[in-house]
């Protein structure tokens, strides 16, 4: 898994930022192909709005911490790099959490512990380890950004499906009238998250050309 992403990112750095950008969103999407950072995809996607806020949080945190880690990569001793990484991530997560609390209290309460849990989200950590430690700041920033966007996209899709099927609404506005569609509470609850995610992976794997099949 780690080897795979390393190869992909090396290809990207010899090309341009564009390559890196594309790899994080599509070919090497953190959630679908690397199976990391799944927790929050499942937990916050009960509503589309929550998913988007969470997506923004992850984009901001990943890109900025990649940038700063990359700036510090030459002066960080390898033994303590994990602690440095966690400290950097935590700083940005705390900033985001405080801003969210000040600006949008309701959302902050709904997301609950999951904003704080971005610290332990493997995507951020994974990108820092696999990419930002070896690459210049700007490229690392783009890599963080693209992985964040790739992640946010999945979040948005899962959130869309779950809110639509679970409560018949989008952004809290009723889309499917109760007379046409009987809402299915299962999709709001935890099992629905697993089923939606499983189906999404199934569909995407089925549509994908049969080249990278051997990895599993």
């Amino acid at each position, binding site marked *: 898994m780690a080897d795979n992403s390393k190869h992909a990112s090396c290809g990207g750095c010899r090309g341009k930022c564009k390559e890196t950008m594309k790899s994080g969103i599509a070919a090497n999407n953190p959630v679908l192909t690397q199976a990391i950072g799944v927790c929050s995809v499942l937990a916050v996607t009960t509503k589309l709005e929550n998913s988007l806020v969470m997506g923004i949080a992850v984009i901001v945190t990943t890109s900025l911490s990649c940038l700063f880690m990359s700036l510090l990569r030459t002066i960080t001793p390898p033994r303590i790099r994990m602690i440095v990484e966690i400290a950097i991530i935590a700083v940005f997560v*705390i900033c985001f959490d405080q801003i969210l609390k000040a600006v949008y209290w309701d959302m902050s309460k709904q997301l609950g512990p999951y904003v*704080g849990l971005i610290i332990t*989200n493997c995507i951020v950590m994974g990108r820092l380890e696999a990419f930002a430690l070896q690459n210049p700041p700007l490229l690392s920033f783009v890599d963080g950004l693209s992985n964040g966007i790739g992640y946010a996209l999945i979040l948005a899709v899962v959130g869309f499906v779950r809110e639509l099927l679970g409560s018949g609404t989008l952004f809290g506005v009723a889309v499917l009238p109760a007379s046409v569609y009987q809402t299915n509470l299962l999709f709001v609850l935890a099992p629905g998250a*697993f089923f939606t995610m*499983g189906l999404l992976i*199934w569909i995407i*794997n089925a549509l994908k050309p049969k080249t990278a099949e051997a990895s599993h």
Partner: protein
Amino acid sequence: MNPTPLWVIFVGSLFTNNILLASLLGMCSFLVCSSRIDTALGLSYAVIFVTTCTTAINYLIYYHVLVPLHLDYLAFVVFIAMIAAFVQFVEMFVERFSPKLYHSLGIFLPLITVNCAILGAVLFMVIRKYDFVQSVTFGVSSGMGWGLAILLMAGLRDKMGYSNVPAPLRGLGVLMMVTGVIAMVFMGFAGMLNMQ
């Protein structure tokens, strides 16, 4: 303080509010380490131990150091640093006393640091305003709940090796589906009691 009785917290976080199946935390190591029963068992022991100790330590730090000093916005950093230090300790301990377990867990032990279940348990403890005894109970039982879920999954994956899964669904996809079914089963306990 939270008035929930201890046994409700215990049973609740084992079944109805299982940290993995209801709060969806700790998925990464759940997916990676559930392919063998003995690895899963070793990891769940480690998780139970670490959640118990870190909820206790973080409780003391949060309510006796951070809150009196009005530094509670630093909670995330302090919590995660505490967890990282503690995991380092467990790792050295396991390496010294059970090299076999150390080899089978391999690189996954440091991964406990970034196991969301651990930080999640600590954050839930703060949000739900548990007192000390409740926090420790919650730590033990959510660790056990996580262990229960990963052991169930490891047992199922043993059998799943013999079944014919459609090719695109193989790997992550079918794991998600199976976890979904397990989560549905655990939801059956929901009528029993409700924990907040």
